[in-house]
């Protein structure tokens, strides 16, 4: 489709209406989603849609660049940063500044209306499509322009990019101001502040469970939070298996007793939740 008609085909119309709605929804989600991750993803969606529109508008190069640079690079950068920063719980959409939301909504709507009105009353009737512009191929056309007419701008943007890269490095690079503390100093500090002198206890119960998300049990069987990483604690992803392990302990004693031939009451009922059944374990024991 080297020649692009001034008036769009019906196919393009259908495409516009479908993808347009998607784009708008994506944008709205970007704004309204609680978690930054979701915002980023919906933004990426919108951008892909835009890429398609670029293609539809005969900007093939840009369309590709849009996908590569934006959805490829920039959005990934966003996601990285989100991971770096926003892992914590989603930020509430509750407004703190008084009247900020109403102002924003009012101004936004007003602004949009103004823009649309502007576009509306601009007489944009004649469309001479990109037919001859893209005649020699879109990329070639762009290249020709960039390296002749816009060469200086191009160079400057290059400089800008380099500066930006360097700037980012400078900003994020943490300069170590004082030398690292030796282990001795650390331990001394620990002793001095007094809490948790020995190393933190390991997670898991008696080495039967050693998943990081299972807290260790204190002698009386109550789980201790010290044993799991604070991140998991924050996310509320701790599995509490203390009661079940106690039940298993009981079952073990029963088996030893009837293996010694002492009879007793009814079968101990296996714990309802999680874990493996004692029958399986019997088989294990047999192996």
């Amino acid at each position, binding site marked *: 489709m080297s020649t692009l008609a001034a008036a769009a085909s019906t196919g393009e119309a259908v495409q516009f209406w479908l993808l347009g709605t998607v784009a708008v929804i994506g944008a709205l989600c970007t704004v309204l989603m609680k978690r930054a991750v979701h915002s980023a993803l919906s933004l990426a969606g919108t951008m892909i849609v835009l890429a398609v529109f670029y293609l539809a508008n005969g900007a093939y190069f840009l369309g590709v660049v849009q996908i590569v640079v934006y959805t490829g690079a920039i959005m990934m950068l966003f996601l990285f940063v989100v991971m770096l920063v926003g892992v914590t719980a989603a930020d509430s959409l509750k407004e703190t*500044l008084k009247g*900020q939301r109403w*102002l*924003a909504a009012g*101004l*936004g709507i*007003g*602004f949009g209306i*103004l*823009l649309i*009105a*502007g576009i509306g*009353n601009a007489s944009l009737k004649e469309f001479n499509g990109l037919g001859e512009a893209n005649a020699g191929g879109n990329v070639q056309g762009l290249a020709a322009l960039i390296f002749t007419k816009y060469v200086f701008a191009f160079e400057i943007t290059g400089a800008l990019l380099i500066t930006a890269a360097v700037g980012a490095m400078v900003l994020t690079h943490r300069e170590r101001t004082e030398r690292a503390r030796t282990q001795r100093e650390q331990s001394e500090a620990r002793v001095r502040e007094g809490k948790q002198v020995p190393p933190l206890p390991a997670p898991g119960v008696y080495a039967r469970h050693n998943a990081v998300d299972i807290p260790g049990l204190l002698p009386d069987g109550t789980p201790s939070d010290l044993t799991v990483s604070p991140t998991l604690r924050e996310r509320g992803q701790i599995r509490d298996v203390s009661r079940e392990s106690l039940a298993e302990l009981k079952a073990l004693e029963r088996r030893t007793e009837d293996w010694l031939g002492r009879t007793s009451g009814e079968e101990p009922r296996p714990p309802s939740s999680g874990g493996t059944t004692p029958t399986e374990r019997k088989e294990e024991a047999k192996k």
Partner: protein
Amino acid sequence: MENLIALLVAAPLVGAALLLCGGKRLDRTGHWIGTLLAVASFAVGVALFADMLGRSADHRAMHQYLFSWIPVGGFRADVAFQLDQLSMTFVLLITGVGSLIHIYSIGYMEHDERRRRFFGYLNLFLAAMLLLVLADNYLLLYVGWEGVGLASYLLIGFWQHKPSAATAAKKAFLVNRVGDMGLSIAIMLMFTTFGTFAFGPVLAATGATSEGKLTAIGLMLLLAACGKSAQVPLQSWLGDAMEGPTPVSALIHAATMVTAGVYLITRSGAVFNAAPDAQLAVVVVGAVTLLYGAIVGCAKDDIKKALAGSTMSQIGYMVLAAGLGPIGYAFAIMHLVTHGFFKAGLFLGAGSVMHGMNDEVDMRKYGGLRKYMPVTFLTFGLGYLAIIGFPGLSGFFSKDKIIEAAFAKGGTEGWILGGAALLGAAVTAFYMTRVMLMTFFGEKRWDPKETHPHESPKIMTVPMIVLAVGSVFAGGLFSINESFVTWLEPVTSFAHGHSPVSATTVTASTIVVLLLGVGTAWLMYGRKPVPALAPRGSLLTRAARRDLLQDDFNDLVFVRGGTHLTTTLVQLDRSLVDGAVNGTAASMGGLSSLLRRLQTGFVRSYAVQMLGGAAVLVAATLLMRGV
């Protein structure tokens, strides 16, 4: 000869400068210098007088042009003197009486450590007064006018440690200032009307001027005269002015300064002749004052205040006469001169009495002094006879003529004025007799232990004698074939009035009322002893003791009202005018603190503002395209 005129003024002026700037080294000789210069000025006056007599009546006026004083555009005031018969009369009176009083003061002020300054002030007064009567234009006259005011201020307040004296001085100056306002307005009117304010042109051009303007000028001049001559309604200062040393009262507040108003009116005769309404006002003021002063004089127990009242009333006579027009001017001046003699004499007498009674002024504490101070008694008595118009003495001639002229005004006015004048004569006789009796007759009401009344030294008595002689013979001398009138006629234009009653009737009636007054006085104060403490007295008496409540009125209206006004204005200035200014400043501050609210520091609110700005821009561009 003309060039001597300036000398008249210069001599005392030099004296004043010497004595006031001379410093302590002149303390011993100061008073002699002052007196000498006063006498010198008198001598010059006599010389000029002789020269003037030598000429024919029409060429007696002399002029001396010194220099152009204020030339601005059409406005030209010169320092130039004019010495005609009228001025001459005044010059002789001022320098003559002035010199006498200088001599008298040498004795009177002997024990005052600031005597040098006193004489300096006296000389200053002489200079100013001479300037007043010698000026050939109204502005220069105005200088003298205020100059005498200043001198009177300084001399009334001479004993400044007495708050009463300081207050009296201030009062005198202020009241005079009100009059001066009138004079200055009159001068402005003349300038707008005639384009000049020199006597010659102005008085010559009155014929060609609308009566309205002349009336205005006349009334303003009258206001000035009222201020200076203590005429109703501006008379309130004269009584308090008696706080000054007695020679001052004699010279300034009896003989010379207070008569300046009469001079002004007589000098401006042409204006008044052409403005009957103004003349009427003058007459009314004169008549009212002569009665007012007389009544006040009757009630005062302070001898000087009584005399002050009489001064008011006598000047009332003069003003009345001056208001009568050509038939009166000459007699006004004549009475002025004779009054100068006998009233000065009376005051000097009073001063000598106080001198002997260690500065007691209350007549009720006098009594029976005639044998202790015979000379004073004699001179005072002669002055007394003169003022009440005892036949043959000065007052008789001058006052009698005025009464005649008052009748001659004609119509009901004539009758009213004549009647007032006659009544005044009766009251004059009454209060002067009262003073006489209370002071020199009756039993002594003073304590012989602390007061030892004694005759004053020669240097004081001699001037009194001279003045007494004057007050006896001056009147007669003047009226020998109307010599005085003919002398003044070229200036004041004399006309014989046709009075409805014959001269003899008037004379007879004056003598009758005179006897009446004396008789009543004798009945009240001569026959029965005078109480040493003033009885409560009738309502009129009490009112008269308080100057007929004039001061109370002034106090209520001007002093109190003025104080309130000024204090409120101060408040307004602080709250309103300044408040407006500070208010603007404060409102600016408030506005900025309001704008400060916009700077929340929250990025997002800034963002909102940015978006708003963007929206406005877009809207603006759209509108531009729309338009």
